[in-house]
């Protein structure tokens, strides 16, 4: 085994975006591992909420879906979706949302609906699920996705989940809370400037500025103080490989 894989680096980097005491709405797969890793390292008071309505989940094993029984057993509370989405998410009681997506654009808008024309799509994707609500109502949205030109077009084919649509000011005027905070890819970390445009903030040791630009569909601004991502510690890797994803379902 290598000291760490690209996916493991994405997981450890994403975990660092979470602060102790945050309430986070968790998605399955990589975000789930990142949240559980944060909880077992620097953020023991992290509260994990799943859109299926489990509040304060404490899963004994990694769930395959966001509705697995381990999320309900030993949770703090289990509520109907009208309440998890209404009383918790829409009311502003969730700090951080994790989202993936087939496409993310320069304003941080996410598409998980269709590739191509909506009425005659090349690829029909699963759709929003709770993503539109998560992007609209959490205080910080963190996106995790592999970095390819196909996934980073200048404009998405369909806005499933709004980012800084028309800029930070416009998002605020639309009445949307929070907004995209960071995009963690297998090449680097991207953040959003004062106008709401995505820029390159950090590069992973395995990548270069040129590689990131090559995999992005517009001319990407690079921060003056662009940094290099910290590599995963042996302790983090041991937690991921031995406890969080022992079968390597998400990390291999």
């Amino acid at each position, binding site marked *: 085994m290598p000291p760490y894989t690209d996916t493991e680096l994405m997981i450890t980097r994403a975990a660092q975006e979470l602060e102790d005491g945050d309430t986070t709405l968790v998605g*399955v*797969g990589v975000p789930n591992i990142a949240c559980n890793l944060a909880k077992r390292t620097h953020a023991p008071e992290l509260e994990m909420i799943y*859109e*299926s*309505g*489990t509040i304060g989940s404490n899963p004994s094993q990694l*769930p*395959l*879906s*966001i*509705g*697995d*029984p381990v*999320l*309900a*057993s*030993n949770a703090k509370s*289990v*509520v*109907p*979706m*009208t309440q998890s*989405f*209404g009383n918790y*998410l*829409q009311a502003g009681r969730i700090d951080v949302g994790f989202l993936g997506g087939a496409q993310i654009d320069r304003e941080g808008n996410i598409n998980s*609906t269709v590739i191509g024309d*909506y*009425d005659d*799509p*090349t*690829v*029909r994707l*699963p*759709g*929003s*699920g*709770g*993503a*539109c*609500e998560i992007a*609209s*109502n959490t205080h910080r949205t963190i996106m995790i996705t592999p970095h390819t030109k196909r996934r980073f077009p200048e404009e998405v084919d*369909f*806005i*499933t*989940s*709004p980012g800084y*649509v028309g800029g930070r000011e416009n*998002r605020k005027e*639309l*009445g*949307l809370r929070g907004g995209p905070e960071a995009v963690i890819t297998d090449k680097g970390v991207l953040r959003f400037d004062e106008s709401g445009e995505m820029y390159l903030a950090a590069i992973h040791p395995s990548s270069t500025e040129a590689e990131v630009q090559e995999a992005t569909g517009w001319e990407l601004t690079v921060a003056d103080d662009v940094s290099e991502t910290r590599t995963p510690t042996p302790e983090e890797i041991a937690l991921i490989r031995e406890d969080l994803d022992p079968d390597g379902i998400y990390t291999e």
Partner: protein
Amino acid sequence: MSKLRDMEGAIDAAVEDGQTMYLGGFTHLIPFAAGHEIIRQGYEGLTAARATPDLIYDQLIAAGCVDDVVFSWAGNPGVGSLRAFRRAVEEEVPHAIGLEEYSHFGLVTRLEAGARHLPFLPLRSYVGSDYIEHNDAIRLLENPYDGPLNEIPVVPALNPDVAIVRAQRATEDGSAQLWGILGEIVEAAFAADTVVLSVEEIVDEDVIRSDPNRTFIPDSVVDYVVEEPYGSHPSYAQGYYGRDNEAYLTWDEQSQSHDGTQEWLDEWVYGVENRREYLEKLTPERLLDLEPKTNYATPIDMGEY
């Protein structure tokens, strides 16, 4: 009054061609046995509404029962795509289907409006997204009060002709208790004109009355009750059996071609008479593997007054 039927009788009595149906359950308590009976009875032209269509709607689509899907996330949870759903949308196989698309909160809010007999309900989703442009049912309403929002999106009530929902236990007349992930089950039951309730076990009224806070579905909204143990497999029933993740992976393989879906339906739906035969075919060993260890809640004291 007992409303007990077997699944064949309940589906025959409740479902008709061309209806809008809602099979409740978010990952948990999905009414697979009922869905398979709908396929066996060969209904056509159904509008299949459900936040997460899941494998059961993929199978109904592959069987040709569905003309329209109302949904918010059409995927195989934790696995990937719903392949039959995609084939219908992208290639019109076995035939084209119409889509009416929401996000999760939008769709459960529609059910909530339906349950309360309201024409619509507002919510703070869709602003800044492309949904409003592509779904005429999502509209913007002027805020009639003073406040920071000038306009707010609204979604219309959804009142399905039939809802089929599951619970862990109920009386013969349909007062049902459920625990674990509730999803949109209760709202679907209150919103629908006709409700088929399918449960793991029928219990005495004393059991239900001993813990009334857990009775989310009252007999007054239920039309037919079916006792169908393991009726949610390969979905699960909290405390009774776990999710059969292997089956979700198998369908992903099997549904790569339309012919593959037909082979599966021939074997597991048309090839069995009912759920009991399905379970025998599945083997007791497989079901035992899904059995969780017990983990009882501490009893509460309702007090005797």
